[in-house]
């Protein structure tokens, strides 16, 4: 489990996190939402020990990130918004193999992991290509494959689909669903409520604090909360609510 306990963090005199407490279990899928500058990305970097709390604690499977940041980085993989920030090698295969090789794994294990990761994101045919020949969306899938090849217990995705087209975004979402089913904890940062709808739980941040946390259906029904968080219930959810209502009326009229 990832456990954040009353975590504070500031960039100089600008507070980014102000007493965040939050748990993420293995196999749980959380959508982290909130306006720009609400603290989402800072919180993500906390979980991966790229940042350490000024106050409070962040533990990964019981181990404090302050005591063993490398353990956190092995357990929690990160995928950032901009794939250009994440490429480390010229060829796709080498890029995905970078992490497993750094773990000191034998060559056959590296090969198996890279192959599986590329298949999971649908890029197996591009293994020998140079990363520079790929589109932005494909580069993002390479970054995701690199994270998968680490076989992490948790994966934090910071708006991973914002630069992807419909097909690429679907490939990422499908890969994430199968990861969740295999027991990996997912923390998905997004501005897209249609995307957040698929999560087990939505955590809403505002100005560095947790404003609300709960199942999507519960949160979207709370109009006051949605307004104060500056977010709108997604179209597809509103459509399905209306359809449920129409169905209930239909059965009601037939006296069922």
């Amino acid at each position, binding site marked *: 489990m990832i456990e954040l306990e009353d975590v504070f963090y500031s960039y100089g005199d600008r507070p980014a996190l102000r007493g965040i407490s939050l748990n993420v279990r293995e196999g749980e899928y959380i959508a982290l939402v909130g306006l720009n500058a609400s603290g989402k990305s800072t919180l993500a970097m906390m979980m991966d020990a790229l940042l350490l709390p000024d106050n409070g604690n962040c533990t990964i499977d019981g181990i404090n990130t302050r005591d063993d940041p490398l353990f956190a980085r092995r357990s929690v993989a990160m995928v950032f918004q901009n794939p250009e920030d994440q490429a480390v090698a010229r060829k796709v295969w080498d890029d995905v193999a970078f992490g497993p090789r750094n773990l000191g794994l034998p060559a056959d294990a590296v090969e198996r992991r890279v192959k599986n990761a590329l298949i999971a994101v649908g890029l197996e045919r591009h293994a020998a290509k140079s990363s520079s020949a790929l589109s932005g969306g494909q580069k993002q899938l390479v970054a995701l494959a690199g994270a998968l090849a680490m076989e992490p217990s948790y994966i934090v995705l910071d708006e991973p689909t914002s630069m992807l087209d419909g097909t690429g975004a679907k490939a990422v979402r499908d890969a994430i669903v199968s990861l969740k089913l295999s027991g990996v904890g997912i923390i998905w940062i997004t501005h897209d409520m249609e995307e957040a709808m698929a999560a087990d739980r939505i955590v809403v941040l505002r100005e560095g604090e947790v404003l609300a946390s709960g199942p999507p259906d519960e949160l979207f029904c709370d109009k006051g909360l949605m307004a104060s968080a500056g977010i709108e219930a997604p179209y597809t959810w509103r459509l399905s609510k209306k359809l449920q209502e*129409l169905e209930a009326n239909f059965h009601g009229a037939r006296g069922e």
Partner: protein
Amino acid sequence: MALVANDVHHIFSGGEPDEARALDGVSIRMEEGEFIILAGRSGSGKSTLLRCLSGMLKPSKGGVSIDAMDAVKARKLVGLAVQSPERALFEKTLYDDIAFGPVNRGYGEDEVRRAVMDTIEIVGLDETLLKGSPRALSQGQKRLAALAGIIALGPKYLFLDEPMSGLDAGGRRRIMETLIRLNKGGTTIVAATHSVAHFMGISSRLIVLDSGKVRFDGRPEGLLALEDPSGLALPPSLVWAIKLRKRGIEVEWDAGPEKMAELLWRAHESFV
């Protein structure tokens, strides 16, 4: 005056094993003052076309002319905002960042000041931010600041690559307002995006690229008639409108969820 792309082809790593054909015979004419969405899935050639249109990349074959000049020579007429342009904010103050282009073009001090002040008004950034560091701005403000640096040079043609990505609803709205304001002032806008959703309703023309070719060129509502619009990240209302249309039910692309649900329900009732 207009921008004309004539049979534009571009190949990356020509002759190498990883040769990639990015553009495969694109011919487009863009009139002054248009607001165009350039859509297409990842790898369809959008970014490459933007670079060719803006004269930043010379096509392998074919040509681009802007106001009857070769695009490479017409660069002063053009502004190109690449993906995540805020990564290039580097000056100590926001003022210096926006002034960077005008200073380098040799504008006098007063002219620079006027360019900066006019620009922040267009993008809607507060004057008090000018003395501060651009790094202290929010993500949405940084995007506007980076755009301001490009707008300050007064481009006649503005090209933007995924201008909305990574922004929350408020940030997207501010970018949109800025683009509408510029367009009303006469700037020709071409915005490349995989997410047509953000631009539906404000742009008059949509060009869809697929494998380096123009697959659709017309009014955005024309998407309703596309056989397979997958890969375009369409707004959910449009996706449902397309499905209903296939069942012979006409509905506008931006119908609200309640109306769409009623129509879906009726279609379902008539089916069972």
